[in-house]
């Protein structure tokens, strides 16, 4: 197996065992980028020299028997709204052209502290909204990889890097992960610090993880999760051993949500979902129908109003000086957000909490709720697809993960989305790993 094909945990194990050189791994990934990225356009910028220097240092440390942490010598990518010290962070926007942070986002710092090596910055839609990045889907270059974490998804799918940081405020991590055949996690709100991530909506912003297996996600979550006193939204809940949770695999109790999700899915997605659910049930999963609470009816409107109001507040000063530099969709969101009445904004935040409260008893009955991840496979063109199946979990903060479950007739990946209660990632990851065992790992695209 070529080094670029190794997943995160595989590469980390090989480096620890001294069967893989961090320098050889970085060189293999850079060669992969050089071979493919003119077509895929996953990377906004690479840090070739920095990554190679870090790899040489990692290699020297391995030779001395020193391992910085569980990701020693393994590269990762970071979405270009995530601060990286000394490396430009431009958010896919002319507004931020040339901006170079002087410090790392907490998520980046924690990965580096664990020994990981930053390979570069991945393309994002402008400020993580809807104005598209140039990135194409490695499964079909005519299609979007989804967004807003477009380059993060495409880079991991194209085997240019084994792990990438994305973000999700509406549907920006789990959806592109599914469109590209990956495992993608949006953990509980507050589980991974958002300090150093350009904000979009204070109460809905999440750092996301994208990799090619549930084990890789569990490994990365263990490194990135935890309280950050510099982030007022950061949770104080202790960080459990997520990898240990994967050793307790058993057939899960799954709550299949038919209403809304299967109603809005294409016939093909509904059929592939039904086939996957049938395989899970035959393998021993207990699958029962789960009902949504009344407040679900208002979650999409609430999430969109909150996002508009927050983005208006966040961008007010920049908009006053540079309105013409914004692309159309983000500019419209900012300007409409300035006009949303305060009473409706607060009402939307009350709906957020009511939905959390009303769904909690249903979540307690199951290890995870189960839905298709997207209504359809990745669409052709530049528009980044439909995020509606992620919106309820971005609004409420419940953790969600996608695992590959098959291919569409056009050869594009489809996923199953699992959702669980606040801070129940161990059970969620165990259920996802069990589903992954039954359904098989996602195949690699032929770029």
């Amino acid at each position: 197996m070529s080094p670029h094909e190794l997943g995160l945990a595989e590469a980390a194990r090989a480096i620890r065992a001294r069967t893989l050189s961090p320098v050889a791994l970085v060189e293999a990934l850079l060669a992969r980028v050089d071979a493919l990225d003119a077509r895929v356009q996953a990377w906004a910028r690479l840090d070739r020299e920095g990554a190679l220097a870090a790899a040489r240092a990692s290699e020297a440390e391995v030779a001395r028997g020193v391992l910085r942490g569980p990701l020693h010598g393994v590269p990762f990518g970071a979405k270009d709204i995530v601060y990286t010290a000394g490396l430009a962070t431009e958010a896919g926007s002319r507004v931020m052209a040339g901006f170079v942070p002087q410090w790392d986002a907490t998520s980046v710092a924690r990965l580096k502290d664990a020994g990981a090596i930053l390979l570069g910055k991945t393309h994002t839609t402008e400020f993580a909204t809807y104005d598209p990045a140039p990135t194409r889907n490695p499964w079909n270059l005519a299609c979007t990889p989804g967004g807003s974490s477009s380059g993060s998804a495409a880079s991991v799918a194209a085997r240019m890097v084994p792990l990438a940081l994305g973000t999700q405020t509406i549907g920006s991590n789990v959806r592109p992960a599914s469109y590209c055949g990956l495992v993608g996690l949006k953990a509980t709100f507050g589980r991974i610090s958002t300090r150093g991530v350009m904000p979009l909506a204070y109460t809905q912003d999440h750092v996301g993880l994208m990799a090619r297996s549930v084990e890789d996600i569990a490994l990365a979550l263990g490194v990135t999760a935890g309280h950050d006193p510099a982030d007022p939204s950061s949770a104080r809940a202790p960080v459990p051993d997520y990898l240990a949770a994967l050793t307790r695999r058993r057939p899960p109790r799954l709550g299949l949500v038919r209403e809304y999700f299967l109603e809005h899915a294409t016939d093909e997605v509904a059929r592939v979902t039904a086939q996957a659910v049938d395989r899970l049930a035959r393998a021993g999963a207990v699958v029962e129908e789960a009902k949504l609470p009344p407040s679900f009816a208002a979650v999409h409107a609430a999430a969109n109003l909150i996002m508009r109001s927050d983005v208006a507040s966040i961008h007010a000063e920049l908009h006053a000086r540079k309105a013409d530099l914004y692309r159309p969709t983000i500019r419209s969101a900012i300007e409409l957000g300035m006009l949303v009445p305060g009473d409706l904004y607060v009402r939307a935040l009350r709906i957020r909490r009511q939905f959390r409260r009303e769904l909690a008893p249903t979540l307690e009955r199951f290890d995870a709720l189960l839905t298709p991840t997207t209504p359809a496979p990745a669409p052709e063109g530049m528009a980044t697809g439909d995020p509606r199946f992620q919106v309820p979990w971005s609004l409420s903060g419940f953790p969600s993960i996608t695992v590959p479950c098959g291919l569409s007739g056009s050869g594009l990946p489809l996923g199953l989305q699992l959702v669980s209660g606040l801070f129940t990632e161990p059970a969620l990851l165990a259920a996802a790993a069990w589903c992954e065992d039954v359904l098989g790992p996602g195949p690699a695209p032929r770029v």
Partner: protein
Amino acid sequence: MDRDGRRAEYAAGLRAEATRRFGAARADALAQAIEDTAGFMADVAAFPVDPDEAPAFYAEPAP
């Protein structure tokens, strides 16, 4: 007032305010965004929020 009526009322208000703040040309460019946002506002306004429900901001209790 039904949802469509409320939505139309919100859209008219948003358009007037957009014209005042950003000018008529910019308000025209925002026409679709105004319609979308008016729809979200109508849905949020129409939902019967529990009167005891407080807004959720940052801090949520850990388990």
